[in-house]
């Protein structure tokens, strides 16, 4: 299978220039999108759909920092099991519980939910910086996967906050 970074002509590292990624993605799609092949024979249409599908998946993965980190780790043989909670520090497990409680308590208070969302986003930014350090510089994959597991939990929590906010809006 075609590797995502090389598809877009980018170096395989966590730190990425989003503008450069986007330009590369558009250039690739401009070549392979099925709309360019709608009048061409079936074989070419099929190849176009496969490439365009790959380009979309690669772009989606590399654009999102967490997905990008998981992809880089998996390229290095570290698969992260979303369900597995052990190995997380006691402190983080406690923090998880606190966050959950805060979300439940704030369920009908849009402002409190938004505040939680902002706090969460701030913590995530800090942790992503640590991920960058752990993957690109230290090359400490154990540390990186621990951070990624925490970030996955936080992303899930943020989705729950989003859903609670959506419910309030309607």
């Amino acid at each position, binding site marked *: 299978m075609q590797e995502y970074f090389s598809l877009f002509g980018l170096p395989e590292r966590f730190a990425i220039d989003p503008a450069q990624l986007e330009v*590369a993605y558009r250039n690739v799609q401009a070549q392979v*999108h099925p709309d360019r092949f709608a009048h061409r024979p079936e074989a070419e249409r099929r*190849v176009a759909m496969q490439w365009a599908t790959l380009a979309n998946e690669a772009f989606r993965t590399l654009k999102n920092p967490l997905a990008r980190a998981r992809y880089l780790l998996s390229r290095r043989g570290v698969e992260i099991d979303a369900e597995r909670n052990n190995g997380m520090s006691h402190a983080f497990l406690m923090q998880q519980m606190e966050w959950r409680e805060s979300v439940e308590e704030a369920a009908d208070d849009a402002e409190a939910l938004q505040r939680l969302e902002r706090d969460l986003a701030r913590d995530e930014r800090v942790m992503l910086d640590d991920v960058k350090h752990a993957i690109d510089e230290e090359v400490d994959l154990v540390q990186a996967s621990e951070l990624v597991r925490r970030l996955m939990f936080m992303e899930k929590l943020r989705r729950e906050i989003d859903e609670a906010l959506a419910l309030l809006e309607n």
Partner: protein
Amino acid sequence: MALLQLSEPGESPDPHQQRLAVGIDLGTTNSLVATIRHAVPECLAGDGCGIILPSVVRYQKDGSTIVGQAALAAQTIDPRNTIASVKRLMGRGLADADAGMRGRYDLVDTGDMVRINTVAGQRTPVEVSSEILRVLRERAEASLGDELVGAVITVPAYFDDAQRQATKDAARLAGLNVLRLLNEPTAAAIAYGLDEGAEGIYAVYDLGGGTFDFSILRLSRGVFEVMATSGDSSLGGDDFDEALAAWLHKKASGVDLDCSKSRALLVEARRVKEALTLSAECVARVPVAADGIKDVTITLGEFHELTQALVERTLQPVRKALRDAALKVADIQAVVLVGGATRMPHVRSAVAKMFGREPYTDIDPDKVVAIGAAIQANVLAGNRRPGEDWLLLDVIPLSLGLEMMGGLTEKIIPRNSTIPVSKAQDFTTYKDGQSAMAIHVVQGERELVQDCRSLARFELRGIPPMPAGGARIRVTFQVDADGLLSVSAREQTTGVESHVTVKPSYGLSDDEITGMLKAGFEHAAEDMQARALREQQVEAERLIEAARQALIEDAGLLSSNEQAGIEAAIKRLGELNLGNDHLAIKAGIDALSASTGELAARRMDKAIRQALTGNRIDALPL
């Protein structure tokens, strides 16, 4: 306004070289066909009628049909056999049909897609729609003087897989080659975006006769990127008519009406609704059971009050799309109004209030979708001119998932994913020696399978006996650029495979389509053989031309053996194409396709490598 001068005068492609393609807006209330002529988009008029074809089909005893204005006029005299708003039934079972449609027609529950009992026999919504499309195809061919290479058909962005598949089947039945199913708001954005050279984030609010769509698009450097889409595929102008009809009926009499009278009431309600876009008050001539007509005066204020809840219902999807795109109202540069129902003043003011600015209505909201589709069709047919290099990136409107234990949905592809998109998921057996696994594909956002739309069920058989949890079954979803899904499943350790193009629970089988096609051709006294031959000949010519061109450009990518193989296949197909055996030509086409498959893949690799070189150059600081 001067619409879309797509090329300078004198620069336009030779009309004889242009491949004829059209865009079709297959609407709930009205349908249109448009094309690009002399580099300008143009809606085509029918013989003796305007550009708008009412989406109404009347079935007669002898099996013949009347489509359009004449059928519209016959609504009240032959209400049961005169089908309007059939789009509301596309890809739907009886249980999903709305009360209005159920009351007006004799709908038959057949377990899958609903059928309509008419004087000419039972008809599926696909067949009714194909009658409309056929008239538009004939109109285009008469107007352009030749056969069409293909058509882009628009669908509501919020149409699910079953509704899209039904639309594509209808086009096939009408003898149209579908180049693409295009989302209606996206079509509108193309028409506006290319016309105005727009850049930035735009929203399209599209309230049609029977469907509501809301899409947010980012336009930048020739790329139309749909960021989020949402809507309600059973909310439209029709619902305003029905609310108004109910109100008028209650005011006038409240006594039950027969079929013909209640259809007349609905027709009058629509007239009043339209009149109220221009004046503040209107006298409705309401049919009543016993003694003909009773006059009821209605003010604009009363109309707004009784339909305000419908307007509010459109704002929920608006908020959802903003949330999905992680945008605020202030991020939206402009809102474009599409669809005849956006002419209602309270709809306009609700949109203006929500976005804090006046919406755009520069291009006729009735025509804008057909025009956008025509622009897209022209490009897809291969008439792209140098420099015309815009690109469209659309999304899937509803999440796709699988049924899990306990009737829960497992989402596989989330809504608003850019298409084409594919996802694979592994499953395992839960019993020792389990030899088959049922797969149920659903579409929707809800947790419970019963609240989502069932798209397809199929079974993977022949799993070799293994202990529970031993088998590894990979299910792959592929959504193509039309937003249509195909699913395949494969047992990883043994390679047992099962593939289905999702012929949805509410769709038609290939056999049914073939049967209808045959019946249709017989009915139209067309020679099916001749048509099939002509189609294969055109396809063969196209393929030979493409293969020759590829050999000229990229012979270097092939070994001399491979090249000789392709040349032999070209020669063979050329010879077959002189004969009149369409099956033999088809076989020759398949052979040449097979021998050029590898070349196609290598050419694509090369194109991507070139694109990446371009990318590095772009990225250099100048």
